[in-house]
Every structure is written in structure tokens, then in C-alpha cells.
């Protein structure tokens, strides 16, 4: 199950174990865990709610993962993204990459996060401590981060 969208939490250590179990051809495992911060633009938040596009989400994550496998010699790549209401400190997303060498594992993990941030159909709504709630705006820096990975042939919206 290299790609999962779920309400429940995940355990990075367990996912590393799942990827490496019984193998001796892996030398480097990188994980990225994204968590809910307790403040947004200096204002405390109570929670975020993650909406997604069932079906397309899984298809996009699988597409992104396939792109990573094309670019780097990976023994494994895992993407887990939570949905629903999450409070500060909770996990949001986990990426795990495994390769023989560290550079491939690091680059592939960054690549997966950069593409996930711009291409995977998730939307985040913040509930502020003040009682207001708003949809988070996309950041230009995320598009910039994705676009540093030259060579994608995928047609993307501007």
C-alpha cells in the first residue's frame, strides 16, 4: 500500500519497518512528517480540516510516486495523507523513501512533498481560536518548489 488516504494517524517508525522488512539492499531511508502548527500568521488555531477529492487524490499520489520511481533508483516510496479534522501537533502527511544511497532518498522525498503540495487535491480549512474559519490560500513558493524539478512532461494548470 504505497499510497494511502486515511482519517487515522500513522506511525513513521512502523512505516520504515514495513519498507525495510527482510531487505538488505537498502542503505538510506528518509521520512518527512508534516504536522499541524498551533498558529497561522501569528494567530492561534483550534484545528484544521482537510477536504480531498476521493479517487483523484489516490490517482494523483500514485502518479507522483511513479514519477519519483522513474527519476531515482528507489527500493520503496510511501505516501500517507490524513483527511478530516486535525488539531495542533497532530500528523498530516508522511512520505517515506528508501534507496541504496542517501542522495536519492533525500531528493525523492523532497520531490514527493513538492509535487504533493501543488498537485494532490487536498484543501485545508483553518479554524482560528477567534472562532473564524477560512480556507488556506495556496502559496506561490510551493509552485516554485515544484518547478525546480525540471523534466516533468505532465500538463499542469498555470
Amino acid at each position, binding site marked *: 500500500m504505497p499510497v494511502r488516504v486515511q482519517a487515522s494517524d500513522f506511525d513513521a517508525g512502523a512505516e520504515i519497518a514495513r519498507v525495510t522488512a527482510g531487505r538488505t539492499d537498502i542503505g538510506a531511508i528518509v521520512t518527512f512528517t508534516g504536522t499541524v502548527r498551533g498558529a497561522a500568521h501569528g494567530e492561534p488555531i483550534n484545528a484544521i480540516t482537510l*477536504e480531498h*477529492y476521493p479517487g483523484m487524490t489516490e490517482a494523483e499520489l500514485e502518479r507522483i510516486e511513479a514519477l519519483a520511481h522513474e527519476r531515482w533508483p528507489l527500493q520503496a516510496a510511501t505516501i500517507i495523507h490524513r483527511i478530516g479534522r486535525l488539531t495542533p501537533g497532530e500528523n498530516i502527511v508522511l512520505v517515506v523513501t528508501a534507496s541504496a544511497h542517501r542522495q536519492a532518498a533525500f531528493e525523492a522525498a523532497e520531490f514527493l512533498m513538492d509535487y504533493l503540495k501543488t498537485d494532490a487535491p487536498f*484543501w485545508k480549512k483553518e479554524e482560528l481560536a477567534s472562532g473564524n474559519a477560512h480556507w488556506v*490560500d*495556496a502559496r506561490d513558493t510551493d509552485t516554485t518548489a515544484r518547478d525546480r524539478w525540471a523534466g516533468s512532461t505532465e500538463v499542469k494548470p498555470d
Partner: protein
Amino acid sequence: MTDKAGQPVKLRYFAWVREKVGRGEEDVTLPATVVSVADLIAWQSTRGPEYAEAFSAGQRVVRAAIDQRHVKPDAHVASAREIAFFPPVTGG
């Protein structure tokens, strides 16, 4: 001549697009004049105040997917079964 039976398609809405439109999905028949995603967005903006709020020029940018693949505004809708509208994504 242009008034033959239109194209049936499922429209889906997410995040603030869904909230403005007031529903998550609907089945519509597209007029034959709607060729591209940009045409469809223009048509949507004429369907009532809640649609105008979501789709009029000057509103925040709306992205689209046809059959669960991201597309640009010039993509053709001719063979689409499902077209989704949503803000730029903010997961991760």
C-alpha cells in the same frame, strides 16, 4: 441547428467553490456552445448568484480537473464524464 441534445456530465465542487455553489456535485447537460473549460467556467457564472460568486472573472482563481486529471482552461470538455472545480490545492 445548435439546439440538439447537449452533453450530460457530472460537475463536482471542492473547498470554497463547493461552499459558494452550495453543493458538492450535480449532473448537468452542457450547451453545445461550451467547448473548453474556460467556456464552461463562463457558462457556470451565468447560472445564478451563487455560481457567479464562485466562477465570475475577478473571483479567486478556480482550477479544474476532467475525469480526475488536472487540466488547463483551454482543455476540451467534449469527452468528459466528470468535471471538477476547486481552488489551488493546499494539502501536505
